[in-house]
């Protein structure tokens, strides 16, 4: 007979610990099951890494101690809490959960079985590292993480994998060890460009030995046998690090009957106010439902046990809600309920989701005539009208406005396309508005389908209205929106090719495209590029002519497309709109007749477009015809940024006299911002993307940036250290390594120090439009 528990907690991360310690305190029969180490994600951190306690404002409510400290301190605290509260801790891997009546049967890989009335799932999103699956994989010198590269010296090490973590580990170890990298394929397709370039260089120079199309056949102490295209090879090795990715936990979770809202890999299973999933008595907390921060998870663990016991518990984030809503008249909780009722968009959110949304928002009380945001601002927050109303100025005529009343939202353009604000918005009367961070809404869109649908619908409608049909009849637009469909393109994909039969009109929602035509020799010559907010292929809608140009995505693009038949059909039924649209298209056709580019400027254009420059807001550019390599730019950057240069003059790519050194481009769609647990990356109104002080040094942005411009660094001590001359190094800096990158010298009124410190004026910081002007028209500039 399997042992029975009131609560089985699966996963001993912060959430699981919060739950298990509270269950233990309440004297409930419970078990905490962990397949690896206690708090494994933190355990895998680099040695002595500082663990931050974000969000600072959120109080901790738990029997588990947690405050900012080193990895070792945090883990010791967790261990002590487990011992002191008497948690029933068990090391095993759960592989099957089945329901039997009103209990669950939990099966483990080692054959152990339990039954439990409630399950608390706190397994995070990391999944299980993929194992070697060969004899000897359990030998002690086979590891799945690398906590401290400095701990290895003069060893023979094999790194398995071809992703970013494998490459970074191999490079980190190669200075002091003899490293072999094992790549299952013949290339490094999953790695970031910067990492790929680095590893290929290291392989070429012999620093790292790479076995392509190879795998480990078996492992023995001190050596491993590889199966390679040339047959089996024996390699000496003292250590093996396997970075072959991980198996995401989704399948395991779905196996219990828990539903995910969409097939989107970023979506989280939904839970109700008590963290209960769609399967009664299975509760989910922490990273798996989209709360990646340690403190949030610990609190949820505590709360979930109170919910199971049926105790009323005030959410820990009440102080934050009070902070956000405090300045409104009346009771905070009543106001929260009022807002929840008014905002139809969020009607399907669970209570914790809605509270988090409000906690991450700002409530504004605005007077009539106040400007909410201006056209061309770079802000990307999302706005909801709670009471009152606002007017959105139409782009072609500022006197025309469309009015948005309570329950409506705006600012969705910035949300989806990442572009500047397309219109100015003013309050038409005294109103209460809620401003929410972009990441928060994006997270909701991927986990709550109703939010995504509603935002998409309105976004499509407004995109059609502002980009092509400003005067169209609303009913016509609504119908068109119904028929329009999303089409996404990867970098380098063609939307259509010259000579094709025209079938669709495309509105570019996100990203940018290159337009090219064949010259007399049949060579494709880049003509220009179009950024998000523009449309291409409109001729197809009215003529029967084949396409006159090729349109290619230069960065990943999202578009909205309308089929020719749909469009014509609708026009037939709306004669007035038809006239307007035809005139507009005729104007565009005339505009389109431009002179062909000469070969040199077309090549230059091709180069910068292929480097993704059109998706940047501000690019650092070196004119190699002027650069004397004095490095004063890097010195200036280091001197103005805590001793560390955020630009690598020698790096990056170059073409003819243009060099794009490694430095932040302040992208329109900053990938770095996508996955920042404390939301430390921020886009300023002028467009620059900056990293704030609350960075926890997790490195997600470093991995996500495709241009390799972010690095984790320690602040260097100010001034000259005399002792260093005598070999005495200062003690290692306290504090975590934090993400650092170009901030466009936002604190210097005069702009980027690197540009101002170039003695020959070789350095420029330009936006893509200016850059095109430079390349295509060869205009002289005198910046600075």
């Amino acid at each position, binding site marked *: 007979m399997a042992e029975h528990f009131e609560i089985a907690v699966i996963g001993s991360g912060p959430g699981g610990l919060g739950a298990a310690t509270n269950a233990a305190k309440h004297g409930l029969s419970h078990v905490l099951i962990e397949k690896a180490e206690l708090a494994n994600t933190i355990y895998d951190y680099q040695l002595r890494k500082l663990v931050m306690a974000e969000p600072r404002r959120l109080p901790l409510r738990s029997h588990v101690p947690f405050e900012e400290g080193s990895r070792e301190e945090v883990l010791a605290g967790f261990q002590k809490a487990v011992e002191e509260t008497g948690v029933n801790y068990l090391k095993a891997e759960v592989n099957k959960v089945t329901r039997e009546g009103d209990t669950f049967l939990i099966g483990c890989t080692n054959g152990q079985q339990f039954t439990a009335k409630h399950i608390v799932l706190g397994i995070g999103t990391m999944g299980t590292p993929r194992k070697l699956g060969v004899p000897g994989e359990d030998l002690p010198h086979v590891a799945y993480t690398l906590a401290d590269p400095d701990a290895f010296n003069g060893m023979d090490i094999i790194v398995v994998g071809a992703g970013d973590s494998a490459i970074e580990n191999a490079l980190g170890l190669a200075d002091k060890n003899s490293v072999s990298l094992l790549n299952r394929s013949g290339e490094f397709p999953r790695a970031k460009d910067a990492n790929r370039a680095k590893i290929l260089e290291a392989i070429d120079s012999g620093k790292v030995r790479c076995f392509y199309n190879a795998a480990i056949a078996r492992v023995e102490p001190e050596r491993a046998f590889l199966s390679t295209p040339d047959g089996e090879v024996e390699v000496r090795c003292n250590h093996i690090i396997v970075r072959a990715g991980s198996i995401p936990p989704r399948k395991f979770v779905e196996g219990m009957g828990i539903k995910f809202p969409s097939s989107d890999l970023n979506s989280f299973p939904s839970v109700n106010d008590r963290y209960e999933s769609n399967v009664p008595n299975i509760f989910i907390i922490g990273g798996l439902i989209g709360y990646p921060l340690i403190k949030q998870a610990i609190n949820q663990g505590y709360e979930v046990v109170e919910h199971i016991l049926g105790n009323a518990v005030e959410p820990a984030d009440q102080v934050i809600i009070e902070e956000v809503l405090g300045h409104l008249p009346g009771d905070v909780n009543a106001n929260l309920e009022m807002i929840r009722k008014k905002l139809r968009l969020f009607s399907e959110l669970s209570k914790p989701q809605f509270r988090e949304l409000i906690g991450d928002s700002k409530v504004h009380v605005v007077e009539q005539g106040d400007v909410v945001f201006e056209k061309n601002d770079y802000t990307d927050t999302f706005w909801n009208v709670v009471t009152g109303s606002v007017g959105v100025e139409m782009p072609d005529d500022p006197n025309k406005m469309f009015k948005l009343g309570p329950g409506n939202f705006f600012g969705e353009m910035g949300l989806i396309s990442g572009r500047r604000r397309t219109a100015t918005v003013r309050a038409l009367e005294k109103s209460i508005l809620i401003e929410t961070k972009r990441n928060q809404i994006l997270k909701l869109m991927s986990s709550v389908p109703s939010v995504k649908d509603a935002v998409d619908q309105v976004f499509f409608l407004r995109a059609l209205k502002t980009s092509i049909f400003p005067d169209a009849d609303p009913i016509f637009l609504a119908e068109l929106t119904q028929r329009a469909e999303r089409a996404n393109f990867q970098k380098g994909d063609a939307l259509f090719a010259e000579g094709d039969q025209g079938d669709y009109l495309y509105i570019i929602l996100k990203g940018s495209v290159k337009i090219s035509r064949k010259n007399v020799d049949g060579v494709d010559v880049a003509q220009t590029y179009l950024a998000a907010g523009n449309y291409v292929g409109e001729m197809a809608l009215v003529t029967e002519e084949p396409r006159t140009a090729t349109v290619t995505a230069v960065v990943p693009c999202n578009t909205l497309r309308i089929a020719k038949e749909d469009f014509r059909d609708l026009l037939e039924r709306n004669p007035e709109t038809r006239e307007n649209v035809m005139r507009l298209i005729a104007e565009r056709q005339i505009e389109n007749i431009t002179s062909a580019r000469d070969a040199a400027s077309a090549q230059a254009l091709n180069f910068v477009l292929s480097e993704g420059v059109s998706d940047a807001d501000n690019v650092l550019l070196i*004119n190699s*015809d*002027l650069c004397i390599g004095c490095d*004063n730019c890097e010195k200036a950057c280091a001197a103005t940024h805590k001793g560390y240069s955020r630009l690598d003059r020698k790096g990056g790519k170059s073409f003819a006299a243009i*060099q794009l050194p490694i430095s932040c481009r302040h992208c329109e769609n900053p990938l770095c911002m996508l996955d920042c647990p404390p939301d430390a990356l921020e886009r300023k109104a002028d467009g620059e993307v900056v990293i704030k002080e609350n960075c926890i040094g997790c490195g997600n942005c470093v991995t996500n940036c495709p241009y390799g411009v972010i690095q984790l660094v320690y602040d260097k001590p100010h001034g000259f250290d005399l002792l260093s001359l005598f070999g005495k190094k200062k003690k290692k800096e306290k504090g975590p390594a934090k993400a650092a990158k170009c901030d466009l010298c936002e604190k210097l009124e*005069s702009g980027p120090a690197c540009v101002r410190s170039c*003695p020959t*004026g070789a350095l420029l910081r330009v936006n893509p439009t200016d850059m095109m002007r430079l390349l295509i028209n060869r205009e002289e500039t005198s910046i600075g």
Partner: protein
Amino acid sequence: MARETFLSYRSYVWFWLCFFALLAMTVVYLLDDPIGGKNGGTIVGYTYGGIATAGILFLMWYGIRKRAYFSARTTLKGILSAHVWIGIALIFVVPLHSGFSFGINVHTLAYVLMLLTIFSGIWGVAMYQRLPYEIQSQRGGGTLKVLMEQVRSISADINRMAASDGGKGAPKSDAFLRMLQQLDFVYQPSLWRSLRRKNPEPIERRSMADSLSSLPIEEQEDGLKLIGLLNKKRELVGRAQEEARALTWVRIWLYLHLPVSFGLIAALAVHIFSVFFYW
């Protein structure tokens, strides 16, 4: 790409400023008729001496400004433009100051040191114009170090070819090794090599043909490969030398321009001190 240099900065604004200032100073100089003849001790002489001293101090300040990275009002390019044009103008200001009287004394020494500084500066300007085209490795987004690494790896490839095909094939024939000995060279970078205007030349077609034809048939293919590698090595070494040469000259120039300018300051101090106390 735009090519406004520090010389043509803002349509040569500093050139024109200096030009008109010199013109004005020359006119005043010609109109001036002091008692005792034109010399450094007249009102105009003192004024021009003051102007020249201020100019020299401004030029020296460049070294500080270059490192003032928080500086907000000006760009370094603009300051360098002023540095160059004002420096050149000083060549003419000092004779106007002294009334064209020179001799073998500490006063003229200061002038000579100033001329040395300025002419070395002009040499530097010329170098700054040429340097971007000489730093070739930069164009590929690399560095001299990367270039040297390429040379090293290609040398290793060549050595591997000589060493019996990685241990698999038969040892190479004597003819092959002789060919290698004739055409290969060990590249040791040195200061002397960096300065000498001599790069390895591509292998002559004739000696290529001679060497190739001396090889046994089965080594012909490897021989061709070897020639390819050797030529590549020569080309890379040539580029590396070109760049090393450019960088070496910049360094030499700095070692000249700076000490001379400090010598000038010392001589200038003695000049001012002596004219006020001993003249």
